[in-house]
């Protein structure tokens, strides 16, 4: 029997998807023109699905900081944080993130995925419990599985369901860690953090929030949902990524629990991988500084968000549960999502397409994520492309 036999069903599904949705799976950004424009299939298009919320991947000062680090420190660290891979930039960024989140300790990881994998797999072990929102990212699920804890899901953003489970599970007398996200990546809605923090206190559980999509996006100072909801102190662990608002690559965990430092020895995903490159760290540091000192970027992002949401809503499209820079346009029929996605690209707009089973409710949707770098003209062009696509769909 072939070692690949177990992939047969997946391969068949993949072939079917490629046949039907091949154009989507084969997208290559052939040339990057700006943080909001690229060339795809030889054609200049507006990027409206990149998670580049503040447009900092192409910010001049971030690029210059990365270039300097590249020249001064080289292309890679060639080692683990535990060995030769901790440079002064890693340590400085950890201090800056601790100050940003008002936490005593921060650990920087190589990716956001790696941060969740490392933290969750180390914090919750056999006999302990993780209660996670059903819409949590795969990195949270994978971290829990790796640690060997008992994993329970609660219905997405359903605080009553969370409490019902907490009540039952607290009878076991073991540690319970609740995991939620600041902004859920698919539907763009916030965790009900204030209520969850209250319940967490009531049952003596720990609370982890992944601010991957909310760092730089939510809160008066860009400090995510913990700032916006005013429950900063009740959150035990904040994780996140550098690959969205910060326009770089890497991840982190910040906490006031000094024992978090033990992860530097106890966490295999931290120990057994090369540390983030000097250029990535330098770009992330500069971008964090911009988030702190340029609130105007956040305002532009939200102005763009309200503007596009209003236009798409007026078209009668089915949108997400909240108005945030992640705007999902929902379709019951995956074929309709694909035909709309194709028409959008023909009309010069790229968005993400999300198909079941990756979608939370089995529907298909086109996911727009906005950027402070989008111009008013680009926002209008995105709305017009949706309008044209919808009109073309109605003709068929």
């Amino acid at each position, binding site marked *: 029997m072939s070692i690949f036999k177990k992939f047969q*069903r997946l391969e068949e599904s993949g072939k079917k998807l490629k046949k039907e949705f091949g154009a989507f799976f084969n997208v290559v950004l052939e040339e990057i023109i700006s943080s909001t424009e690229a060339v795809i299939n030889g054609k200049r298009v507006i990027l409206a699905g990149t998670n580049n919320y503040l447009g900092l991947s192409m910010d001049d000062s971030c690029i210059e900081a990365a270039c300097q680090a590249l020249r001064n420190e080289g292309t890679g660290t060639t080692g683990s944080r535990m060995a030769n891979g901790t440079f002064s930039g890693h340590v400085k960024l950890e201090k800056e993130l601790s100050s940003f989140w008002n936490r005593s300790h921060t650990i920087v990881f190589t990716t956001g995925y790696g941060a969740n994998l490392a933290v969750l797999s180390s914090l919750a072990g056999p006999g302990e419990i993780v209660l996670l929102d059903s819409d949590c990212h795969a990195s949270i699920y994978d971290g829990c599985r790796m640690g060997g804890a008992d994993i329970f899901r609660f219905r997405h953003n359903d605080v009553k369901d969370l409490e019902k489970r907490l009540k039952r599970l607290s009878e076991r007398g073991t540690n319970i860690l609740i995991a939620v996200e600041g902004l859920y990546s698919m539907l763009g809605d916030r965790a009900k953090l204030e209520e969850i923090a209250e319940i967490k206190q009531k049952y003596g559980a720990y609370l982890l929030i992944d601010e991957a999509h909310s760092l730089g996006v939510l809160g008066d100072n860009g400090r995510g949902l913990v700032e916006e909801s005013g429950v900063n102190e009740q959150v035990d662990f904040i994780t996140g990524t550098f690959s969205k608002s910060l326009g770089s690559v890497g991840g982190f965990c910040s906490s006031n629990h000094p024992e978090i430092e033990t992860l530097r020895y106890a966490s295999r995903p931290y120990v057994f991988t090369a540390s983030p490159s000097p250029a990535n760290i330098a770009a992330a540091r500069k971008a964090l500084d911009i988030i702190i000192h340029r609130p105007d970027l956040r305002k532009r992002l939200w102005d763009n968000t309200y503007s596009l949401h209003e236009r798409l809503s007026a078209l009668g499209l089915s949108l997400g549960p909240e108005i945030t820079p992640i705007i999902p346009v929902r379709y019951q029929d995956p074929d309709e999502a694909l035909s709309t996605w194709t028409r959008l690209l023909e009309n010069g707009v790229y968005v993400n397409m999300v198909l079941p*089973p990756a979608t939370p409710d089995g529907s298909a949707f086109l996911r727009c994520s906005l950027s402070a770098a989008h111009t008013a003209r680009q926002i209008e062009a995105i709305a017009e492309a949706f309008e044209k696509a919808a009109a073309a769909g109605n003709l068929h």
Partner: protein
Amino acid sequence: MNADQNLPDDKVFHSIVKILEEMVPPETEIGLNTDLGGDLSIDSLKSMEILAKLEDEFDITIPINVLSEVRTVEDLVRQIKELI
């Protein structure tokens, strides 16, 4: 309509069959040895739905870790019985 006549008169088994019947084409045969993925094409999303419905039905909390131990209907019956 789908349960094998020889199967035990078991509340957990029948509850599982009832939930599965809502997810598969009519007249699909479901028995203890039915492979959830192979025979019924139950994917990860549907698996989560099944667990949620069983939690409501039996007023229990099911760790999703059990899914790694479940291939057939019989496996699922056994896992649920351990939690009741």
